[in-house]
């Protein structure tokens, strides 16, 4: 799908992190691989430390903590909110929906629209797409987009392919109508034929969780122990997917926007790992400095909230006073991949909250 969103603007981003920070070195002994071999990945992949929630924390907790922070600091008023959109692969429950849990816990008005989208690493762009469409019907009200995942609960701690890079976090993005906003060019693709490259086999209606699905096994005989309740990622397939699909996606999106790479100030991409982002920058022939790639080493890969966390961590103070020409790209489970050009700046807030969770 290719489209242009007109007169829409991101006016604030809050990153919400769990309190607990775990270092990669402290987890090396969990993996069934030689320590030296695993440690070699530290520098290459950016495995340094990551944030994980407590056992008692659910995804909505990060969202509610973040929205309450915004309300208390008067960065948003309840009366301004027309809709809340939650994008997550790790809801608190199948029913009720995370958006309704936030709605209830923050005591929002009954005419606020609540909507959950079950999407993963491409979820920031999918959430923005939904939010921009809702704004067409909300007048001067705002949409609050929550991207949240607590994937540490769904990834095996003995899976060296996935556990070192995951990070729990929420990104809360406020979008609103603005007659002076520049056009946002948007471009999104999906390929359900490759859906099993990222899969949690059990826990849904296809294969409900049971004692059998919880058994830890080395199913792929690659040294990684995981159960059918855990996330399984085909790393090679995902790598090839990203390097094959994303560079032409970026080129195509820039062409749609009638912009060239030299005039983009920041390429703000989903943050899978440092190696993949370096290779993307090389393929696109853009300088590494224009492609922030330090989210995994500081927080882990926070799935759908990776771009909001990237913006807050790397551009937090800059986007308060300046305006930047940005190209965003997100890609992951589905498989889904999308990009957009958007002007970011003069925000009301762009900051990080370390929660008690």
């Amino acid at each position: 799908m290719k489209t242009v969103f007109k007169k829409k603007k991101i006016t604030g981003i809050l990153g919400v992190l769990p309190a607990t920070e775990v270092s990669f070195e402290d987890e090396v002994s969990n993996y069934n691989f030689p320590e030296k071999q695993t440690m070699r990945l530290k520098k290459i992949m950016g495995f340094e430390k990551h944030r994980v929630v407590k056992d008692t924390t659910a995804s909505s907790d990060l969202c509610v903590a973040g929205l309450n922070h915004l309300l208390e600091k008067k960065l948003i008023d309840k009366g301004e909110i027309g809709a809340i959109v939650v994008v997550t692969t790790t809801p608190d429950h199948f029913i009720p929906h995370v958006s309704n849990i936030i709605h209830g816990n923050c005591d929002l008005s009954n005419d606020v629209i609540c909507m959950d989208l079950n999407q993963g690493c491409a979820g920031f762009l999918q959430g923005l797409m939904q939010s921009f469409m809702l704004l067409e019907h909300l007048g001067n009200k705002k949409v609050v987009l929550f991207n949240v995942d607590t994937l540490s609960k769904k990834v095996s701690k003995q899976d060296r392919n996935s556990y070192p890079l995951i990070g729990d976090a929420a990104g809360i993005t406020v979008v609103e109508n603005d007659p002076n906003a520049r056009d946002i060019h948007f471009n999104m693709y999906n390929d359900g034929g490759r859906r099993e490259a990222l899969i949690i086999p059990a826990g849904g209606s296809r294969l409900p969780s049971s004692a059998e699905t919880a058994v830890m096994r080395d199913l792929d005989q690659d040294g990684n122990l995981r159960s059918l309740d855990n996330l399984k990622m085909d790393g090679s397939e995902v790598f090839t997917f990203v390097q094959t699909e994303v560079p032409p996606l970026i080129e195509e999106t820039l062409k749609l926007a009638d912009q060239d790479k030299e005039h983009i100030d920041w390429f703000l991409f989903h943050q899978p790992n440092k190696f993949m982002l370096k290779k993307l920058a090389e393929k696109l022939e853009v300088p590494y400095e224009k492609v922030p790639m330090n989210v995994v080493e500081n927080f882990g890969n926070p799935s759908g909230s990776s771009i909001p966390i990237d913006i807050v961590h790397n551009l937090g103070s800059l986007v308060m006073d300046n305006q930047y020409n940005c190209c965003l790209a997100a890609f992951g489970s589905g498989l889904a991949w999308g990009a957009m050009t958007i002007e970011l700046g003069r925000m009301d807030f762009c900051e990080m909250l370390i929660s008690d969770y």
Partner: protein
Amino acid sequence: MDKILGILTELRPEFDYTQSNDFIADGLLDSFDMISLVSELEEKFNVTIDALDIVPENFGGVEAIVNMIRKNGAEV
């Protein structure tokens, strides 16, 4: 060739790479080893390896690795 064998042995000292005809099928290299190896090769041969060349077919043996390096413009 010896330089590449040296890098491989440094990477996974528990294996004898001279005894395998297919490093991937024989389990001598996994996907993360491929990434580690690319990083080492780029440093040692002063080359940037195209992302689309990082596929198992290019890591099956020393000759395949040499061809990949040469394809990306470095002397081996």
